[in-house]
């Protein structure tokens, strides 16, 4: 019991340290960035904005204080629970993130489940049928997917399903022209489908290939030969003896892929004009919106960290050997 509490405590301390490091590093990167925030904000209006006006803009955003002082102020505000104000969206950072996170969460959850399920199933099939045509097709398909850029795949899907077949909408998370109250769950799912599919494709290939390997190893083991000798059919073999053993790598990969999932969502959201955190991250980075970008960095850190910890737990539950190893260590 005490060891469990201690383990949670040490994990929390590690998280806090990690957050501090991420915050400092992100801030240092932003401060060293050659992009001038005022230039980024002014953009194409550079001819119409004079030096006096630029000074006003810098003043409004507090850019005149030295970087260390700005970081200090920001830290003090964070400690009080105030995430600051986003100048890109002219809104408190907390509101920006709250508004976008739910949309993003739905997208990532669906994509994550899809890529896990599809990847694992394909991996099992390929592993069991190793060397046969099914395996070759799946392996080829996995390699193709892992080398295809998300952005491009998204556009292809958009043209196939939204333009030619017109099965899915072109853009957005809600039907164009609909008032918020009229949008039903089915509408939302319909708009989620294609971006989620695009995003899931990013994660399928690694899960498939690792699972294939794990299944192949399991299939070649003595206990499978023994079970086979007892008359078990392939389906039963896979179900009772292989799945649990082969799930380890898939689970670890799946949970640790949350970071990549987030990165992929930036692109998928852009193609489908899906207004999630990914789109906000791009806007914040391009506009040098320091409070927003830092908040998103921290948020993502927590997200990925929790994902990895969950992966550890589930893996330990699936495979008691790792659990023992941890205790002795």
């Amino acid at each position, binding site marked *: 019991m005490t060891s469990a509490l201690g383990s949670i405590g040490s994990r929390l301390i590690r998280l806090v340290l990690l957050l501090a490091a991420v915050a400092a590093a992100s801030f240092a990167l932003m401060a060293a960035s050659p992009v001038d925030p005022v230039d980024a904000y002014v953009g194409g209006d550079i001819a119409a904005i004079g030096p006096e006006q630029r000074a006003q803009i810098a003043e409004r955003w507090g850019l005149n204080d030295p970087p260390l002082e700005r970081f200090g102020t920001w830290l003090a505000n964070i400690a009080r629970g105030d995430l600051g104000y986003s100048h890109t969206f002219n809104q408190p950072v907390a509101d920006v993130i709250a508004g976008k996170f739910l949309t993003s969460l739905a997208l990532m959850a669906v994509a994550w489940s899809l890529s896990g399920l599809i990847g694992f199933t394909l991996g099992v099939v390929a592993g069991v049928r190793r060397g046969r045509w099914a395996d070759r097709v799946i392996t080829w398909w996995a390699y193709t997917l892992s080398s295809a850029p998300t952005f491009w795949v998204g556009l292809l899907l958009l043209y196939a399903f939204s333009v030619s077949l017109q099965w899915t909408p072109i853009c957005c998370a809600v039907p164009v022209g609909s008032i918020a109250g009229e949008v039903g769950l*089915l509408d939302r799912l319909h708009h989620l489908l294609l971006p989620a599919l695009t995003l899931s494709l990013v994660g399928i290939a690694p899960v498939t290939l690792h699972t294939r390997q794990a299944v192949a190893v399991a299939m070649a083991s003595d206990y499978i030969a023994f079970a086979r000798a007892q008359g078990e059919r392939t389906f039963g073999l896979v179900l009772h003896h292989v799945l649990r053993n082969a799930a380890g790598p898939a689970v670890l990969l799946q949970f640790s892929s949350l970071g990549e999932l987030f990165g992929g969502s930036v692109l998928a959201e852009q193609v489908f004009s899906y207004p999630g955190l990914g789109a906000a991250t791009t806007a914040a980075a391009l506009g040098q919106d320091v409070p927003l970008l830092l908040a998103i960095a921290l948020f993502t850190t927590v997200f990925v960290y929790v994902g990895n910890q969950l992966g550890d737990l589930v893996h330990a539950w699936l495979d008691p050997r790792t659990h023992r190893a941890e205790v002795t260590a």
Partner: protein
Amino acid sequence: MKRVGMVLAGVLVLAGCAAGVDSKSGSGGQTPKELRLAIGGESADGYDPTLGWGRYGSPLFQSTLLTRDPELNVVNDLATKHSVSANGLVWTVDLRADAKFSDGKPVTAEDVAYTFTAASKSGGLTDVTALAKAVAVDNDTVELQLKRPQSTFVNRLISLGIVPKHAHGKDYARKPIGSGPFTLVQWDQGQQLIVQRNENYYGTKPAFERIVFTFTGEDASLAAAKAGQVSMAAVPSSLAKTTVAGMKVVPVKSVDNRGIVFPYVADTGKKSADAGPIGNNVTSDKAVRQAINQAVDRQALVDGVLEGYGSPATGPVDGMPWYEPSSAIQGNDPAKAEELLETAGWKDSDGDGIRERAGVKAEFTLLYKADDTIRQGLALSVADMVKPIGVRITPKGVSWDVIDKRLHADAVLFGWGSHDPSEMYNLYSATQAGVEYWNPGYYTNPIVQKNLDAAMAATDQATATKFWKAAQRDAQGNGFGPAGDAAWAWLVNLQHTYFVSDCLDVGKPQIEPHGHGWPITAGITGWRWSC
């Protein structure tokens, strides 16, 4: 497989019902209730004019004191009259009495004074820093007092939408209230903006009850057009060659120009405030600058680089009311270019194809923004065009970072274009040399300066226009234009391309400024359905 298709088709039918009236349903000769446009233009920080909303196109929710008609002449909107004091420091504006905000309260001089004061302190994207004080003299007269005479201040009267003093709070940018042709229904950030006709609008009422702007990327906008889901889509000219059923391509003229700025002064080892080198010993010679202006085949650039969607540019304000046509040069004439160089003493004595004079080779670097394919195409083509006359231009794609350091010593390919002649002032006035990206070449000519200053100090637009024109080329032939000092080599004006439904009549669009998409909404209240 078939079953999957049927299920998906079923989903589509459901979604189709929920999506409401589409533009297609107007085929019965009736104007559809709703118009859908994919022309970008989302203002991420909301719809507050004091932060810069509405500086292009229509501010939708607000209305402005003055406005520009399709020919870009200044006409009244909220104002009924305006006058400028003899010293140019006091602008007096009379307001119409019948304008109401969408919450029913009248638009008063107090609101106008408040709007200008707020905008002058907001630190947003509208520069009202010339304003000293705005005073409501009575209920329908407002006095705008300036710090310095500025004839271009008229553009603030044209672009600044009036906000209600009583309702301009923290969430105004998300819940705008104004006296414009539309009111906000809903804004799904990053996705769409739904607006509805303001039935109490004092001006020409729009033909459409509701307009939905979708904020898709270029590819998705084209996809939406192909799928018949929008009545208008702004696309880059490189995508305009495709055909879309039921839609026509509408190319709109613009003053969205591209041109080369030459370092105007010789390199004497001087440095700018941030330690960048100033001057170039080749481009500081007028003969070289004029020869390049003569040698460039601008029509070929339009056809080759812009695929026909553009026009030759010979000045920064082509087609604007203050444009001086006589400052332009017609066509191209490499023979004349060579003659100019010969006369100035640039000769190819070592036979390597590049002229030289007093040990200086006629060569220089041309910087352009590396990720911009149009600028790249222009830079490479220009280098090819001047090679035969014995001038070597080395085009170099770089980041703004590099341009920031080198822009006073190397030629740079820039893009400008505005409905506000302040831009022309900034590009050519000696007072703006080395300020921001303005006058990077340190151009200076006392005669031109006098005309620019006179235009700025003018108290009526006709006088200002007269001096703006003279700055390009006056009666004696002085001016910054290619026929005079040739401080720049302007190359092309882009055309902004839109796919527009065959049924949608957008009238005569204004010549658009730098920026593709939203500016077309300037005439949105006059758009009609013609099927």
